[in-house]
């Protein structure tokens, strides 16, 4: 039973990012990316860059690489125009990348503003404090943070209870209670502000390695490495570029042999038109934008690889509570057994929940009080027993030694048996009744005597069934993990529409399920927040940790959700798929474009060979054909920037439906669109 202590927040958008000035900055960055040392990183566009330089040279002197027949001035004009278009082809590609990076940089700037370079109060071994800059703090040292101060670095609360405003990183305005000992509420993030009381914190991250530092590095793209798919695609694009380089480089002797010579500028134009500049220019922008979409979703991914892996996920392992059902189960009914009255049961239930601050606990207390129950002891003299995932019980030890427990029915049975009591069929009947309603039964006992069962009602999140239907169509299998018994679990599983469930699950089960699925070659995604989730988060291919979770969980995961909403895992799957689809769609489009470009350029530049009839578009002249094809080639990059940044609209369809749809749009469209566009440009430009 995983009890969520933190109130779930609605979806918000993080750290208000300054988007003004994004485009002016991108325009500037697009120029600085012309630096050959940077340009060489993209082999496809670098070839265009080199081509631009060569055409610029033959603009100055058309006869540089051997005498050209035509009039030098006309040549110069054509070569000059080609140079300008090629320059813009490179610049547009740079611009696309700069815009994509700009969003990340803007976000990084706003995060950087929250990073504290304030003074911290370091606690020395003798208990005295010393004021040091926050950057001088090392792992393992302790600091004292008072109300109004900013927490200097990531850490764990050692002592004290305080409210902390984490809006700087989560965007959530409601403060969060931090206290030591508890798994979840004891971790604090550097850059957040203490707004009440004071905390003693043990630092867990060296300077520059804190959560915010890593976030900045990630959103800024400083640590951006090409993802496996991106690398493979780059290989293909590079090979294609080499192929077309050979095709074009071997053309001069061939065309010379058939008495249809051509010029270097025209050959470069043909080369640029044929190499995959569209996808080559947009590839990195697509990747950066994919990371950015995740970030805008308030999730920080440690790598692009993790985002890509989301698209490949076969199995989602989901905790029932918080993901499938609303976190708060509410006590709905009390079912006394063994001849105890409802009043007796209510009194014991109230006593058992006095120290239980969870929503469930409070709802039990409320229900009991409504039924007229009162406690007849002083809570300060009693000892509260905390819930643990191992015992699956909580309760209270009264001053007179009486033990009151509530918890999972099996756990309570074990408890009363260990104290000489018995479990009767009557208890099982009550338990089953609640289970069949899809509720969670909690048994309550005092000493060795079971008093009855509390019916905790589980509420399946609205709309979750539709989400699971979509996932199923996409081929993603869902497994629900729950501490509930089989009957309850199956009722909820059916109501929510998950494919499979594991009842009475312990934290160890999580990692077992993941291993089993992975052994079948599947990629598994899961969410978690507790320290005992850390191994499973590390084992999963996609591990999404809640920001409210422990430091250990966050470090083991490859994504952190700042809103701490486990349902987001489902959205991440679609973002991952969208990223891959966008990449594939633009690749297909780019390659399909080549047919039209071939038909525009080859017949017209070799018209001396008598193949003018292949000019099926009826372009005006060789010059106009080349310029039209190149203008199309350049303009298609900015035209597709919005698609590259926003991604292809995702639809939850099966693979076959997606392929059919995307092949029609990007494959067939990629064949047809350039024919129309090049013809149109040819009609517009006045170059005869």
């Amino acid at each position, binding site marked *: 039973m995983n009890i969520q202590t933190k109130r779930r927040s609605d979806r918000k958008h993080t750290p208000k990012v300054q988007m003004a000035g994004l485009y002016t900055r991108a325009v500037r960055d697009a120029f600085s990316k012309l630096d050959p040392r940077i340009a060489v990183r993209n082999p496809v566009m670098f070839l265009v860059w080199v081509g631009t330089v060569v055409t610029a040279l033959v603009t100055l002197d058309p006869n540089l690489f051997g005498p050209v027949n035509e009039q030098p001035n006309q040549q110069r004009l054509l070569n000059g125009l080609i140079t300008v278009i090629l320059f813009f082809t490179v610049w547009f590609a740079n611009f696309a990348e700069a815009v994509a990076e700009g969003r990340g940089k803007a976000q990084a700037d706003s995060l950087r503003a929250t990073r504290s370079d304030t003074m911290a109060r370091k606690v020395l071994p003798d208990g005295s404090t010393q004021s040091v800059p926050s950057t001088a703090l090392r792992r393992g040292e302790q600091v004292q943070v008072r109300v109004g101060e900013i927490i200097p670095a990531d850490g764990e609360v050692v002592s004290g209870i305080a409210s902390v405003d984490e809006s700087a990183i989560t965007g959530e305005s409601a403060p969060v209670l931090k206290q030591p000992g508890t798994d979840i509420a004891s971790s604090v993030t550097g850059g957040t502000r203490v707004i009440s009381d004071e905390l003693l914190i043990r630092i867990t991250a060296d300077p520059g390695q804190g959560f915010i530092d890593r976030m900045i590095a990630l959103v800024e793209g400083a640590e951006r490495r090409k993802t496996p798919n991106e690398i493979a695609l780059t290989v293909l694009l590079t090979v*294609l570029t080499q192929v077309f380089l050979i095709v074009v*480089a071997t053309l001069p002797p061939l065309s010379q042999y*058939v008495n249809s010579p051509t010029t270097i500028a025209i050959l470069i134009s043909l080369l640029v038109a044929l190499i995959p500049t569209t996808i080559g220019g947009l590839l990195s922008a697509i990747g950066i934008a994919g990371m950015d979409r995740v970030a805008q979703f308030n999730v920080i991914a440690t790598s692009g690889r993790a985002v890509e892996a989301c698209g490949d996920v*076969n199995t989602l392992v989901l905790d029932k509570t918080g993901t499938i059902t609303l976190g708060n189960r509410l006590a709905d009914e009390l079912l006394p057994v063994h001849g105890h009255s409802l009043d007796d049961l209510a009194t014991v239930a109230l006593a058992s929940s006095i120290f239980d601050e969870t929503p469930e606990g409070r709802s039990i207390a409320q229900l009991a009080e409504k039924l007229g129950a009162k406690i007849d002891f002083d809570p300060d003299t009693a000892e509260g027993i905390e819930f643990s995932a191992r015992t699956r019980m909580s309760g209270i030890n009264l001053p007179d030694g009486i033990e009151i427990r509530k918890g999972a029915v099996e756990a309570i049975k074990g408890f009363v048996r260990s104290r000489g009591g018995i479990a009767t069929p009557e208890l099982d009947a009550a338990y089953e009744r609640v289970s069949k309603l899809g509720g969670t039964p909690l048994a309550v006992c005092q000493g060795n005597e079971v008093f009855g069962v509390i019916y905790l009602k589980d509420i399946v999140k609205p709309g979750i069934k539709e989400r699971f239907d979509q996932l199923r169509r996409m081929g993603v299998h869902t497994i629900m993990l729950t501490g509930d018994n089989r009957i309850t679990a199956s009722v909820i599983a059916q109501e929510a529409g998950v494919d499979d469930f594991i009842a009475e699950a312990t934290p160890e089960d999580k990692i077992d399920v993941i291993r089993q699925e992975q052994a079948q070659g599947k990629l598994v995604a899961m969410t978690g927040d507790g320290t005992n989730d850390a191994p499973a988060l590390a084992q999963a291919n996609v591990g999404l940790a809640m920001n409210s979770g422990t430091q250990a969980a966050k470090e083991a995961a490859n994504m952190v959700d700042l809103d701490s909403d486990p349902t987001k895992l489902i959205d991440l799957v679609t973002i991952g798929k969208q990223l*891959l*689809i966008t990449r594939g769609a633009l690749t*297909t489009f780019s*390659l399909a474009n080549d047919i039209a470009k071939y038909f525009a350029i080859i017949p017209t530049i070799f018209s001396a060979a008598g193949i003018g009839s292949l000019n099926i578009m009826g372009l005006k002249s060789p010059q106009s054909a080349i310029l039209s094809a190149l203008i199309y080639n350049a303009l298609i990059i900015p035209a597709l920037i919005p698609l590259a940044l926003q991604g292809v609209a995702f639809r939850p369809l099966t693979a076959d439906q997606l392929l059919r749809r995307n092949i029609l749009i990007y494959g067939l469209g990629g064949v047809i669109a350039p024919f129309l566009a090049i013809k149109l440009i040819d009609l517009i430009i006045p170059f005869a």
Partner: protein
Amino acid sequence: MVQGWIQIAGTLLIVLLMTPLLGGYIARVFLGEPTRFDRLFCPLERILYQLSGIRAHATMSGWHYIQAVLISNLVMAVLVFITLMLQGVLPLNPTGLGAPTWDTALHTAISFVTNTNQQHYSGETTFSYFSQVVALGFLFFTSAATGIAVAIAFIRGLTGRPLGNFYVDLTLAITRILLPISLVGAVILVAAGTPETLAAPVVVPTLENPNVQQAIALGPVAHFEIIKDLGENGGGFFGINSAHPFENPNGLTNLIQILAMIAIPTSLIYTYGIFANNRKQAWLVYGMVFGIYLVFIAIAAIAEYQGNPAINTLLGSPQPNLEGKEVRFGWAQSVLYAVTTTGTMCGAVNSMHDSFMPLSGAVQLANLFLQIVWGGQGTGTAYLFAYLILAVFVTGLMVGRTPEFLGRKIEKREVVLTSLLILLVHPIFILIPGAITLAFPEQLAGISNPGFHGLSQVIYEYASAAANNGSGFEGLADSQPAPTGLWWNLSTSVSLLAGRYIPIIALVLLADGMSRKPVVPMTTGTLRTDTGLFTGVTAGVILIMGALTFFPVLALGAIAEYFQIAGGI
């Protein structure tokens, strides 16, 4: 005309019926199921393996397999080279032929060991019976079996099995497939009139002038002929190959030759279907290739049937183009033979490819460029599935997952190997030497027809070498003692070797890597590759990535020539 189309359709029908039978048989052989030849060959093979120290049950890793292919092929090529150079002192040399020039012997050894059989010589005046039968005939079997073995290793790897043992597969390919079929085929050819003798040429007075003597070359032709076609070798016993009345006397032998050429490349697709346990996919891919094959046949057939407009004007009526064709075959059987031999990388010819109409020439070139209609012995099938993998990679991302083929992820290594294999080898080893040769047409090429046709002749020669086809457009002074013979022998040797061994290395490494990958289970989110839609997508990828590379050379060669002739120049 109707007769011609019926001949074509009838032949294709037999091909369709043959595929599942032979394909199923090949699968049985390599899946280790018993065949009726086991009683005969198993004891023999055991002795062979024991003598040569082959551990028949030890499967090879990728590099080990490649090593075995390269070393065995090198040894065979060296042996054949030495035999050819020493033929003057070796037996079975009734016409007393001396050693060829070293470069002719080198080119021939490389050309035959690579299953290409590009011939820069005329068999009857260059090589003794011993050289033809023992040296070249030996490579007919081993080079074809090498191709089959690689294809089987590739299919095994793709379907998650260990690659197997090269030597064992080579032996099985010969003893279970090539030898039995050749034996039956040779007997039929002998019955149909093909000579099989070690006797010296017959010298007879000519009919026109009894005082003039004519030597009629003979030889052990029939057995040579059948494996020439069945093994996609294509090297003719005589200079004019299957146009020679002793190599290919009549319609029946012509039919047998066409069927022999196409039998194994078509069947291996079906064999894949059995290995992958997905006959639907096999038939879909088969259908795609068959479709391209039909389109190519139709283009060439119509072009030849309509004939040459310039000649038709002289004749005063439309006549099929019969220049360079044997009248006993006519336009239809010549077209079918030409499209099949260029498609299957056999390279045998029953008519002069140089004399075909430009569009037929374009089809023949396209066959060499694509290499998958139906492709070389074994390697063609492997290429086909490499194209499928490339299509999966390009379009597979569009379903929102890392592309997978048969449940195995297509990652960087696969992309490197397939794109190298499919996209890069051909442009490098066809276009670059072609451009060099055309830059110095006088010094290097020795072209008979300048202009567009000359360009096609040069490109065809290198394409034929790089695709391991071996047929020629001809019309080039590529044989010794022409001054350009040396350049042709050496430059095509480079294309021959690169076109054979780089793809084999890439294919084996690809298969090896795939066989080790974990299999991701199929879901509705997985791109299915056994659908009509995906097969259509593959056809598009083949067209755009495989064919468009060669659009400029086709445009400046065959297509320009077509417009030239159509324009009445």
